[in-house]
């Protein structure tokens, strides 16, 4: 059941993308997420997809690993798509049956919405696929460090995040083990009605909680034993220093952002014209 969950799983190879500074990657992803909401034309989506594809190739990631992250939200995408398809009434009516109406505008909005979500998740998953949880936490800590001035415990927050990420695979494994053990005693987790299946989660959740608290306890001891919180002047083995590649990446993502904005607000006709050329009468 949880075997294929790959979202948030670091893909351990050494590529130019993996080597980028986590802060640059974090900011880039934020910029990317903002940018994608400005994309309106198919041309814009193609540009975005090209960027994602370029990064995937550069990071030498198998396409499957990115698609798996997308699969995680497939249900949400599907439901939103269906709602959009029937609720948006705009332009030429394509299908009408009873109360269900599908319009041309609805179809296009739906397609674009799906594209937007898929590209969004792909982009965000690139971050977790190419950045270790520790780098991520360090990056967030570093970006949030101005908040230390107003007494926000930035370091502890970063630690909590990185530990949470580190334990996701462990807890999934544990869940599978407990589920198997209860199934072996006849629990209806993979058989029986929906009600039965939901009720049968109790024997899984209780041991999972108990074991998680035990783990947390042990981890706390292990961290204390290794002098966690010994000094405020905690040092870092890996100092993130910005290298040339980081500036190139930052420039690229800014350029992308600029192109998207320009395409949307200053040269809206470019996208529309290209869309028209490719799709012709379909629009």
């Amino acid at each position, binding site marked *: 059941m949880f075997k294929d969950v790959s979202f948030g799983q670091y893909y351990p190879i050494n590529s130019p993308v993996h080597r980028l500074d986590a802060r640059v990657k974090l900011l880039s992803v934020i910029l990317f997420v903002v940018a994608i909401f400005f994309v309106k034309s198919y041309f814009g989506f193609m540009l975005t997809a090209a960027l994602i594809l370029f990064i995937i190739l550069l990071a030498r990631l198998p396409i499957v690993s990115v698609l798996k992250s997308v699969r995680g939200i497939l249900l949400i995408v599907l439901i939103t798509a269906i709602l959009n398809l029937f609720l948006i009434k705009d332009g030429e009516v394509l299908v009408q049956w009873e109360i269900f109406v599908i319009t041309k505008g609805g179809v296009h909005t739906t397609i674009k919405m799906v594209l937007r979500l898929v590209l969004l998740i792909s982009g965000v998953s690139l971050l977790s696929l190419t950045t270790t949880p520790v780098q991520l936490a360090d990056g967030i800590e570093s970006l949030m460090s101005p908040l230390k001035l107003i007494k926000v415990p930035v370091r502890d927050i970063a630690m909590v995040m990185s530990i949470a990420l580190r334990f996701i695979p462990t807890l999934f494994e544990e869940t599978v083990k407990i589920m198997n053990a209860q199934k*072996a005693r006849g629990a209806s987790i993979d058989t029986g009605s929906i009600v039965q299946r939901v009720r049968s989660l109790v024997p899984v959740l209780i041991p999972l909680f108990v074991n998680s608290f035990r783990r947390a306890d042990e981890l706390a001891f292990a961290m204390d034993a290794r002098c966690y919180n010994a000094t405020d002047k905690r040092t870092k083995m890996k100092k993130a220093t910005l290298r040339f590649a980081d500036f190139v990446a930052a420039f690229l993502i800014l350029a992308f952002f600029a192109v998207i904005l320009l395409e949307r607000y200053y040269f809206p006709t470019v996208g529309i014209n290209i869309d028209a050329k490719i799709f012709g009468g379909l629009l």
Partner: protein
Amino acid sequence: MSVVEIKNLSFVYSKKTPYETRALDDVSLTIEEGEFVGIVGATGSGKSTLIQHLNGLIRIQDKKRSSITINGMSLSDKKYLKKVRFDVGMVFQYPEYQLFEDTVAKDIAFGPKNMKLSKEEVDERVKRAMEVVGLDYATFAERSPFDLSGGEKRRAAIAGVIAMQPQVLILDEPVAGLDPVGREEILTLVQKLRREVSKTVLMVSHNMDDIARLATRIIVLKDGRVVADGTPKEVFISGKIEETGLELPLAARIAKNLKARGFDIGDAITPDELVAGVRRAMEAKHV
């Protein structure tokens, strides 16, 4: 009719991903009623994938080629799934981590209740299971399983499985993490269970001394294949164990070393046999 029949069983994890691993590779074997089978192999040799197939926790991947039958029921057939889970009891590693009810008796009743037995029958089975594992009903039934000692928790968890009165009992490293006296108690319990509850027992263990002493048959797995299968004596004398990177039992190691040094005391795999071998050699010396 054999209790367990496995034909050409193969299994691949994470198929078509960079993490693809072959856990089982064309495994065929049959297990007869009354056998005590020791399943050994290094970590990652496929032991746990194999045993989880036996009660349908892992579904057969290639139904055309592979088949598993338990008491004549084919596991490729979904309608037997539940029945097989009750016929094949599975005690996982560290089973105490799966306790969840607020009293010991309720936790043990979980399996029998899932079997849709009558309330009287469930109570009867809980009492019987607790008695067999040595947890006094009056003392322990109403206590929280989380307040028990380590050894008691493990026995409560085992009771939760044998309350289903499975014909085949599978135990994965049942003594892991226990102190020497606790280990001995659980191993004695396993033998008792074989006499009184489940005639056929499969035990996964890294401890060759335990296996040599208890099992009637040993199956050795390596890289998902069965590389040796026979009585403990056959398997431990065949030299196959060393090839898989595992250790011989203590007695066998000593007998082998003695032989290399010119003292042949015959084949020995258990302490008793080693002692008997030394006795024979001593007597021969005096003649």
